[in-house]
């Protein structure tokens, strides 16, 4: 690492003296080479503290003219300065602009030219005449400020080469662009700000460095701890800075500044989790980009009571969407523009928005209604605003005010808009609609949901919020009245969004409509299960009767063959229902050979579970449902091992029938598939000995594993026949809680090498059949021992140790139909 590079803020204290020594070597100043410069790691070493100064008389003056400077979209682009007060253009000049322009006191500056040779150009704001054109020192131009006749700007360059990395702070004469002073540092500086006659920058996200604007001499430095600083804002006359939060730094007369109040705004729900202010380290392009289009705008107000947002409002722009929030995060109003909002500024009770279409809209900060509007010429790619007051310019006044629009209407408009970029904002609108106390918001959410172009993420969010919403369930009920109709173009209602809310609202009057939709061929197959559950929950005997009718009608029909989950769910409901009548329907379906295969398979474990008690009285039984059999989704290894253990005696009979076999075998390997019903299929047994295979296959055909509900389970199982050879368990030691590397070290030192094959030898159970040692140790059959099943499904059981029967390649090749078995060397 170069000596010029800086360490993190934490290490700064330790490096202070080293870096102070190296300061001169790492930075320079064109005006005063001997000036002590700001260096990394000890930015404020040997620097005077940043003190408070009385405001200079020049800081106050008549309010500046309100202007918008923008770069038009297209090639070549043009820089335009528009006077909002007079409603006329002050400047229009064509060029290839690289950065968003900056409106300074009496000059507008922008960067033009190619990447390799960027140039800063300045134009007089009054006359529109060019004032200067000069090269920019580094590739990225961050921004400029003006203090008197000085224009001070920061350019920066990022590079892996330390010699090319750094920032340059340059001051020029605002009248002709001649150099005044310059500082180069090997680290990042932020966009500059002004505080009186001083220029402030943040050095490398850590310290605030002040320079005298006129001379360039250091005017103080403030180390501000380890918290990263991304932006600096001195427009209020106070020093405000921060990253996601805003901090008020209080300057004193004698000592280093101290932390004042802090402001945290609830931006967590906002897409992109923006900061209060955009980063001061980003170069903002002149062309279309997210800069200006996505972000928060608010006026920060340092107050004795603490740092606050002016009007207790902040606005958040997301391309064409604009949301206004109270300081506590409550949404106040929202708007959707026809084109992107390129620039949004809050000023004294108004929000001024420059849109890509060239509209300057003046909105009331309190309710968002349109106060006035001005039209720029050309499409806007990027824009800067200079606003001194919220007073509506004469040329912006509206002949007829637009109609008032409620927040709900605005949110509906935002949520329903089909601009694919706006999905995060649409989700925000959906969330706000769901929080609305107006029942009609439920209908709005459904309207958004049924849009053909609605993305699935939006739909799932709507379904979720509607299910949780306690208001408007009567609207959900009326939404069930619609049915698919080709002639009228009416779509089927969005049951996935409607039904959960009805169940939550206990809308029992929905049952007839739900039944109608259950039998409607236009109801999505995926919705049938949800409908069945809702009917069962809300419907009582009527619902059960309808479910029974549906079950009977479709139990053998191919329309639900690809996905029988609804029928299976209905079978479960009927089986655990209040009446023996429904139970008989399930029994009949189980006996019907035409019943869909998937359904029939599911009925086996369902009916194998303890039968529900005969109902004493339907009314009572309807309240106290019989215990429902729980069918796990997956079968775990422990279940498989338990089943084998339970049938060990039967399997032992097979082994015991052939003494010779028993004498030579150390293990038997089973490979098989377990169906959902718990039956076993595609059984393969190694070694392939006819008598043994026949016997074991017959025994295993009778074995039933626990039923499960999802997919099939491929598994293998090794029946170890030599319990005495099991690896000894390592006794628990006091070091068992030690880190794994320590335990491994201790275990390695105390354990003898296991009698096992090396780990690198292939032990794939799919082709390892059985180990047949050349020297039988005993002719006596031994007790079968359960071993660890191996399968493709995740195991929830604790791992068990392998028997030390080192699997060797099989002595006989598996049958030809086992395609996955690699060819064995002969």
């Amino acid at each position, binding site marked *: 690492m170069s000596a010029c590079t800086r360490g993190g803020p934490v290490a700064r204290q330790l490096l202070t003296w080293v870096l102070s020594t190296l300061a001169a070597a790492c930075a320079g100043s064109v005006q005063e080479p001997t000036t002590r410069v700001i260096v990394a790691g000890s930015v404020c070493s040997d620097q005077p503290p940043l003190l408070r100064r009385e405001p200079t008389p020049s800081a106050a003056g008549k309010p500046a003219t309100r202007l918008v400077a923008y770069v038009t979209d297209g090639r070549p682009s043009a820089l335009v300065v528009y006077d909002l007060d007079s409603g006329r253009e002050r400047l229009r000049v064509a060029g290839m602009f690289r950065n968003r322009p900056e409106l300074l006191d009496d000059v507008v500056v922008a960067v033009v030219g190619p990447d390799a040779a960027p140039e800063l150009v300045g134009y007089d704001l009054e006359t529109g005449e060019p004032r200067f054109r000069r090269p920019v020192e580094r590739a990225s131009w961050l921004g400029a400020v003006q203090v008197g006749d000085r224009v001070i700007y920061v350019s920066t360059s990022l590079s892996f080469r330390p010699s090319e990395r750094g920032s340059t702070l340059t001051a020029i004469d605002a009248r002709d662009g001649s150099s005044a002073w310059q500082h180069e540092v090997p680290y990042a500086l932020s966009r500059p700000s002004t505080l009186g006659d001083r220029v402030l920058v943040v050095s490398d996200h850590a310290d605030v460095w002040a320079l005298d604007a006129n001379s360039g001499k250091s005017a103080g430095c403030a180390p501000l701890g380890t918290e990263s600083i991304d932006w600096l804002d001195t427009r209020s006359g106070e020093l405000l800075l921060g990253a996601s939060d805003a901090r008020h730094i209080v300057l004193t007369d004698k000592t280093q500044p101290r932390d004042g109040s802090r402001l945290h705004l609830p931006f967590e729900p906002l897409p992109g989790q923006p900061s209060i202010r955009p980063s001061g380290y980003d170069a903002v392009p002149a062309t279309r980009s997210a800069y200006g289009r996505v972000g928060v705008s608010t006026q920060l107000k340092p107050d004795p009571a603490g740092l606050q947002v002016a009007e207790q409002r902040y606005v958040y722009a997301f391309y064409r969407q604009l949301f206004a929030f109270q300081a506590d995060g409550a949404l106040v109003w929202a708007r959707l523009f026809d084109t992107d909002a390129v620039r949004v500024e809050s000023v004294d009770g108004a929000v001024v928005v420059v849109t890509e279409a060239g509209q300057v809209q003046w909105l009331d900060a309190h309710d968002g209604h349109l106060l006035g509007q001005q039209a720029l010429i050309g499409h806007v790619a990027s824009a800067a605003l200079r606003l001194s007051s919220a007073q509506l310019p004469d040329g912006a006044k509206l002949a007829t005010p637009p109609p008032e629009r409620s927040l709900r209407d605005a949110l509906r408009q935002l949520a329903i808009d089909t601009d694919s970029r706006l999905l995060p904002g649409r989700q925000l609108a959906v969330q706000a609609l769901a929080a609305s106390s107006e029942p009609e918001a439920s209908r709005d959410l459904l309207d958004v949901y049924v849009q053909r172009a609605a993305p699935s993420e939006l739909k799932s969010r709507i379904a979720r919020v509607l299910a949780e919403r306690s208001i408007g369930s009567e609207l959900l009920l009326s939404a069930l009245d619609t049915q698919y109709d080709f002639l009228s173009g009416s779509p089927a209602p969005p049951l996935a969004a409607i039904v959960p809310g009805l169940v939550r609202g206990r809308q029992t009057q929905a049952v007839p409509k739900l039944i109608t939709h259950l039998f409607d061929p236009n109801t999505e197959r995926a919705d049938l299960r949800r409908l069945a559950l809702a009917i069962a929950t809300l419907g009582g005997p009527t619902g059960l009767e309808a479910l029974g009718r549906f079950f009977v009608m479709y139990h053998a*029909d191919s329309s639900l063959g690809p996905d029988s989950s609804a029928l299976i769910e209905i079978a479960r409901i009927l089986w655990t229902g209040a009446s023996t*009548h429904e139970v008989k329907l399930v029994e009949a379906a189980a006996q019907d050979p035409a019943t869909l295969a998937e359904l029939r398979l599911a009925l086996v474990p369902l009916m194998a579970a303890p039968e529900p008690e005969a109902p004493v009285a339907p009314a009572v039984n309807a309240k106290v449902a019989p215990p429902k059999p729980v069918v796990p989704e997956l079968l775990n290894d422990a279940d498989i091992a338990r089943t084998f253990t339970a049938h060990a005696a039967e399997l032992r009979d097979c082994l015991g029938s052939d003494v010779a076999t028993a004498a030579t075998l150390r293990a038997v390997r089973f490979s098989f598939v377990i169906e959902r019903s718990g039956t076993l299929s595609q059984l393969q047994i190694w070694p392939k000995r006819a008598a043994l295979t026949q016997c074991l296959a017959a025994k295993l055909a009778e074995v039933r594993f626990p039923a499960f509900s999802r997919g099939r389970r491929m598994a293998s199982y090794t029946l170890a026949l030599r319990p005495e050879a099991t690896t000894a368990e390592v006794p628990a030691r006091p070091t068992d809680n030690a880190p794994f590397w320590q335990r491994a070290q201790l275990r390695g030192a105390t354990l003898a090498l296991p009698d096992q094959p090396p780990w690198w030898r292939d032990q794939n159970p799919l082709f390892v059949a059985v180990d047949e040692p050349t020297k039988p140790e005993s002719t006596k059959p031994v007790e079968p021992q359960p071993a660890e099943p191996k399968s493709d499904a995740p195991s929830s059981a604790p791992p068990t140790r392998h028997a030390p029967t080192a699997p060797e390649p099989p002595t006989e090749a598996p049958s030809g139909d086992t395609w996955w078995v690699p060819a064995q060397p002969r």
Partner: protein
Amino acid sequence: MLLSFGMTLASVAVVVPPSMASATETDWFASHASTLNQPLAKRLQTHDQTELIMVLDELSPGADTDRNARAVSDLLRSGQTDVVTDHALDALARLRSREGRDVLMGFLHHRRVEARMRAYSALAELKDSRDASVIALGLRDSAPQVRSDAARRLGELRARSAAPDLQRALELGVNEASAALGKLGDAAALERFTTQLGKLPLPVMLEGYANFLERPDLPDASKLAVIAALEEVSGSLVKDFLQARSARPAPNTSPQVQQAITNSASRVLRPSTTNQPGAGR
């Protein structure tokens, strides 16, 4: 109804038919012959698909039509495989008994398009004008086949009340509604139908006009307006259409209409081959 499902399947334990897979051909025919004399309801209590289909296909209107329709209805209510369901619905269509109407109403909303089509057909076979409004619901179905079939059936039924729905269906691309409208539409319907001339394919429109022009109940003025409209469209298709009707007039065509058809047929020109060398000289 639910009990019938339970009873049907419960009885299987007692009467299990011989399996086709395991029985020899002779054995099977022997056992089949032994069941022929049983009542239909009994014969339908089997899970043998082939047996069921054979029994259903044998059904035709006769003395026991209503009883057989009830038995088939019970079979349908007990839930069958696709093939058995389809054959059962076809059987109900042949039986034409109102005893099967209730179960057919249920199958109009079946999830399988084939089943719905068959149910509409069976219902239409009842030839009962009271069912026209139900069959008209088929025009609202999501399946194009069902909509087309319903339009055709409505035309056959001369269901005048369905004219507005048929017109709407025609505008939405149910071409079969054209011919149906020609069979049942009145003068006002014809006027509305003609608004689609130039918007819908000409062959589709001509199907409807053919039926309109054959209708003795329509006033001549309406027919003359059709002929005039077609002459304005002109072209080979129109000329062929008019020439065919000029050569073979429909019964009860008035001399005035017939003369207009003949005159128009002669006036309508076939499109000139302007893109050929020498054309237009």
